[in-house]
């Protein structure tokens, strides 16, 4: 066992931290992301790719600490994993170069986090497919050049890459509370060639499952960074803030609350690592993957709620002010807690994976 970073991992950490400490990134920084190699994490060697879930963790934790607003999660981790699993190096190449930008549209009005609840249909018509349906909460849709959509092709679900400007595709983008953006998509008979299919016919849910597990693990890492920073800010603030003639950090009740925040951050850190490890080692076992990743999301959601609410409470009024940073971290944490499935959803998924679990750790790996 060895938790020290390799030189390459240190390089990612430092470069992301440097970036995050500077001005925060909107769209215009994408070429810089490509240049720094961040778009190549997890891509195959042939495309100049390197690293995997641990490197994504390192990057996303720093994004969290720096409250970087970026479509990285959706356009690189989620879409990138999907394209790689579908063996679409052609498209992945343009993603790594920063030329094309993909997002994934899988949620529907009543699907409540579950990617298998798909009402959108893709009907074969000669060489092409015609898609009809509605997708909601599509992350970072406004900056995507291509939207990968899940649709029912008979009994199975398949994926299709639609150009963002396709005919009969209506996108309503909106800003979200955390400074990100999302969009609702209507497909009123969008016609695409059969070659637009991503992966095999009927492979949609298994590809989505894998990509969502990677994105969820990455989101856990971002949550970890947010929490760690909120704890540090709270400790610092309570040491400065004077009330009744003493720093409020001298009140035992606040000390214990901060100790509990520390415990939650450390448990969250462990689970973020565990999720990354699971993706590394159990890549091909969807049950083990769901178990590890969903356990991590449950922990991050629970810890994040406690740490975020405590940070606001201990800051008092100033935590509620738009001018002070901790409120923004709290807002993003509130979203991260629920994005890609909240604690209840992932607890259900974890329970569903129970039967196949090994109760006592096998000799092969830790935990």
């Amino acid at each position, binding site marked *: 066992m060895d938790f020290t970073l390799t030189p390459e991992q240190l390089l990612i950490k430092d470069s992301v931290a440097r970036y995050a400490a500077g001005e925060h990134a909107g769209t215009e920084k994408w070429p810089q992301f490509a240049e720094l190699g961040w778009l190549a994490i997890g891509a195959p060697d042939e495309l100049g790719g390197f690293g995997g879930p641990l490197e994504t963790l390192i990057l996303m934790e720093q994004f969290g600490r720096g409250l970087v607003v970026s479509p990285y999660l959706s356009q690189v981790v989620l879409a990138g994993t999907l394209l790689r699993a579908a063996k679409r190096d052609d498209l992945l190449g343009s993603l790594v170069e920063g030329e094309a930008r993909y997002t994934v549209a899988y949620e529907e009005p009543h699907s*409540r986090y579950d990617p298998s609840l798909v009402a959108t249909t893709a009907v074969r018509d000669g060489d092409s497919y015609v898609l009809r349906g509605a997708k909601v909460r599509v992350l970072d849709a406004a900056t995507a050049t291509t939207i990968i959509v899940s649709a029912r092709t008979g009994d199975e679900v398949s994926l299709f890459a639609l150009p963002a400007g396709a005919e009969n595709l209506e996108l309503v983008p909106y800003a979200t509370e955390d400074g990100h953006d999302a969009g609702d998509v209507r497909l009123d008979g969008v016609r695409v060639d059969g070659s637009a299919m991503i992966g095999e016919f009927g492979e949609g849910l298994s590809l989505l499952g894998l990509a969502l597990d990677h994105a969820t693990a990455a989101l856990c890492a971002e949550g970890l960074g947010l929490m760690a920073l909120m704890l540090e800010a709270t400790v610092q603030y309570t040491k400065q803030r004077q*009330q009744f*003639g003493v720093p409020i950090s001298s009140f035992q009740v606040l000390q214990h609350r901060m100790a509990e925040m520390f415990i939650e951050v450390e448990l969250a850190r462990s689970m973020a690592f565990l999720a990354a490890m699971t993706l590394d080692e159990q890549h091909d076992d969807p049950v083990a993957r769901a178990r590890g990743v969903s356990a991590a999301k449950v922990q991050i959601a629970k810890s994040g709620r406690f740490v975020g609410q405590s940070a*606001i409470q201990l800051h008092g*009024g100033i*935590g*509620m002010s738009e001018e002070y940073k901790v*409120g923004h971290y709290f807002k993003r944490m509130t*979203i991260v807690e629920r994005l890609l499935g909240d604690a*209840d959803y992932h607890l259900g998924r974890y329970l569903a994976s129970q039967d196949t679990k090994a109760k006592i750790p096998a000799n092969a790996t830790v935990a």
Partner: protein
Amino acid sequence: MDLAFSTQERAFRDEVREFIATQLPEDIRRKVQAGDHLVKDDYFRWHRILHERGWVAPGWPVELGGTDWTPVQRHIFYEEFAYGWAPRLLPFGLNMVAPVIIEFGNDAQRARYLPKIHSGEEFWCQGYSEPGAGSDLASLSTRAVLRQAQDDSGRDVYVVNGTKTWITAAQWADWIFVLARTDPAAKKQEGISFILVDMRSPGVTVRPIETIDGGKEINEVYLENVEVPVENRVGDEGAGWTYAKFLLEHERTGTAGIAGCRQQLETLHELLERESIDDQRLNEKIAQVEIELEALAFTELRTLAAESAGKRPGPESSILKIKGTEIQQAISELALDALGPYAERHLAPKYFNYRKTSIYAGSNEIQKNIIAKRILKV
């Protein structure tokens, strides 16, 4: 023991319910129901309607325009506000500065200020908190120095300097009541005076503070060499802390906001129905909150019964503050849980906004200190 409302109390409830149903302007009702922000004119119109009915100041003595309601009636009155989606009037004039003026002001002050508070002609805001003084209210540093006015009138004025923060409705207010230090040499809680400041005085600046829910309801108020006539001081110089404490205890009524929570839960149930969400885990969490709310509602009634029996409202009200705000926060959290982060646009701001309730009006930590010290006597 008789744990039910009396016939008279039930008749009173019907009367209030009927009044709100017929008299509250429909546009205001809709705003409240939707959780939208109200503007000054909304408050003003509703104030006038209540004023006409004689119900604008239940807490005041009857001879000044109050009502002679029992604590239980007052409770029923405000419960019906919530059930009828009627807005509560802003408390700063009616329920905060007015009781202080009634109790500690002189006749001239009573004659000058009370009628315009009662009629709604003048709006007030509260100048207590300062950037450096939150829960530790008495550590305030705003100063008021007595001297002759600069305009050669020869009259005495306080020159007030300081910053007040977290001030709701300052942007609409005609007047602000401030706590200011008139004797810098005195010990912490002494040397503070209670002073009424005209918001149009030169040197008063209002700056909105944007909150994380996107709201702009609260403000910072800067007081720079503001001249205030000495007759605007209420009561004795240096006794302001006593009046402030009186006011804080007077503020109690309705802290728990039970009826408001019931309405929020109702809205949540409607939302779930509309969106066809029937999730067992969520339903259980909602049920748990409902049960706690029932427990708190009955606790409030027990407190009221004790008040009706002649006991002063005591530190028990800290329970209502703590649990009431916890339940409000829990409901806003459940609503967000129900629909997800990006679903209904107003749910996240509401959740963010409600985080303030456990901080303001004496943080919940301070309330627990009060229970420990004044009830458990540890």
